């Protein structure tokens, strides 16, 4: 039997492919399209401490090679999540990570305090890279000192697997990842969307109320692939590669440059069954290429001729 399992922190994933935050709903929405036992897992939409109504329309603009989004972390807050959503999510056997979007250190501590009393999920992905909430969330990602203040000691608050999701739009992400590694985080999810914008020429205004939005989809793959490669050289903890994955070849590219697993966002919006589909294709590929263990693929890219 070919082994497609990977381990991140305390979590074992049956496949190295997850649905990414903001594109997997609450996981529940995936079950109509995927055999939930045949996917690696998913990361929930960002959860904030208090109810967050999100941004005005338009929230989505399709552009060449991908899309810009300005969702603005719409969710009903952590208490609603615990009461109404977590019970529906619990039944899935795949890996389940909760994406937490803190607006302050107090926020983060409260979020973990509330959630750590609950069961039925594997860990947290702390998100400081939401391009749509500049002042309260993205500022942690653009400033190493602020990030350190936010993340210091967080590891001691939970036994669960702890990931940090970072933005490709700031060089600080590399040093922040290193700090997270020192602090005992289990992995880095990289990359979030690229900060970008679009103009409505006819009306001479920005398309989005917020001016900036997050760019995702196939156009970002070469950029994120290189960023992920660089990140795997920078830290020793597992890096989960994200950005523009649409097919098995894309998955293999990320694994070969050293990502332990991948997440899929935009690709999942286009093809909601992509998690199961690519997991099966990966298995078939390993059989065909006679690769007994997924570990043989991870980081196998040759760096010299």
């Amino acid at each position, binding site marked *: 039997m070919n082994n497609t399992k990977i381990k991140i922190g305390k979590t074992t994933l049956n496949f190295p492919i997850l649905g990414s935050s903001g594109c997997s709903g609450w996981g529940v929405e995936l079950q109509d399209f995927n055999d939930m036992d045949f996917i690696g897992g998913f990361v929930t939409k960002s959860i904030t401490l208090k109810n967050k109504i999100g941004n005005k329309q338009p929230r989505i603009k399709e552009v060449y*090679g991908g899309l810009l989004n300005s969702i603005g972390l719409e969710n009903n807050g952590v208490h609603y999540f615990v009461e109404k959503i977590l019970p529906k999510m619990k039944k899935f056997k795949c890996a389940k990570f909760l994406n937490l979007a803190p607006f302050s250190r107090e926020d983060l501590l409260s979020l973990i305090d509330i959630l750590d009393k609950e069961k039925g999920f594997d860990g947290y992905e702390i998100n400081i890279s939401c391009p749509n909430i500049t002042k309260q969330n993205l500022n942690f990602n653009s400033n190493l000192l602020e990030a350190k203040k936010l993340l210091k000691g967080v590891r001691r608050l939970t036994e669960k697997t702890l990931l940090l999701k970072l933005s490709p739009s700031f060089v600080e992400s590399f040093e922040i990842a290193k700090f997270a590694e020192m602090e005992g985080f289990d992995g880095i999810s990289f990359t979030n969307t690229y900060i970008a914008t679009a103009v409505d020429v006819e009306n001479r205004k920005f398309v989005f109320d917020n001016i900036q939005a997050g760019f995702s989809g196939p156009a970002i793959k070469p950029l994120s692939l290189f960023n992920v490669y660089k990140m795997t050289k920078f830290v020793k903890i597992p890096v989960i590669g994200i950005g523009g994955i649409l097919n098995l070849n894309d998955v293999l590219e990320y694994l070969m440059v050293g990502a332990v697993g991948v997440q899929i966002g935009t690709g999942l919006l286009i093809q909601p069954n992509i998690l199961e589909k690519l997991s099966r294709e990966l298995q078939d590929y390993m059989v065909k290429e006679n690769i007994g263990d997924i570990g043989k693929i991870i980081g196998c890219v040759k760096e010299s001729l």
Partner: protein
Amino acid sequence: MNEKVLEKIFLSKNIFLLKISKSKDCKILPGQFASIKTPLKDKILRRPFTVVKDSQKKLTFLIKVVGDSTEYISNLKKGDLVDIIYPLGKGFEEKTDFKRTLFIAGGIGIAAIIPFLRGKDYSFIFGDKEGEYENVLKYFSLKALYCHEKKNKFKGFATDFINRFDFDIMIGCGPKNMLKTLKDYAQKNGKKYFAIYEEVMACGVGLCNGCSVKTQNGDYIKICKEGPILNGNLIDYE
């Protein structure tokens, strides 16, 4: 999943009917839609279209060409495969006296109203800005107060003619300013109002919150999951 194009009929220069095979065993309710993915490399997102007619082995769509994806679909030929997901959205299940209902559509919004129009006992106002839909009314044998912004017997917007009817409920689909005018009317006259609300969608299946619309309570609801038929009196047409 893939379905096959069975037939395509142009009813005017930019409006066509697309009939495709239906291999899934399901009943599609008024308001429910499907999403189609074209192989175009520069339009990667699926596009939502109302199912105007549902039969056991066939789905019918009424589509207006407005951009690249709809143009691509308009060029499909009999036997071509269509990458499609259906049924999506919540269908209309509310117990409603359609004899006391006024249906109002503007432009391609007619696609979402057609599934409601059964028999002969209905009231329907249809606004056709460019005068493109005459054959659509004929094809589906629809009886409508057919108005036009320029010529035609009923000159003006669809919303100008509401007072000619006696009704308790309105169901409308069309441009946002039309839906908003209907809300103003419904609120002034204490009418029940369902708006079939169309917003740009990314996934169509509830994964991304891209399609959320603001309600008067200050929260947002996902059109692709909770809609597209919504309580029109509750929507904040920002």
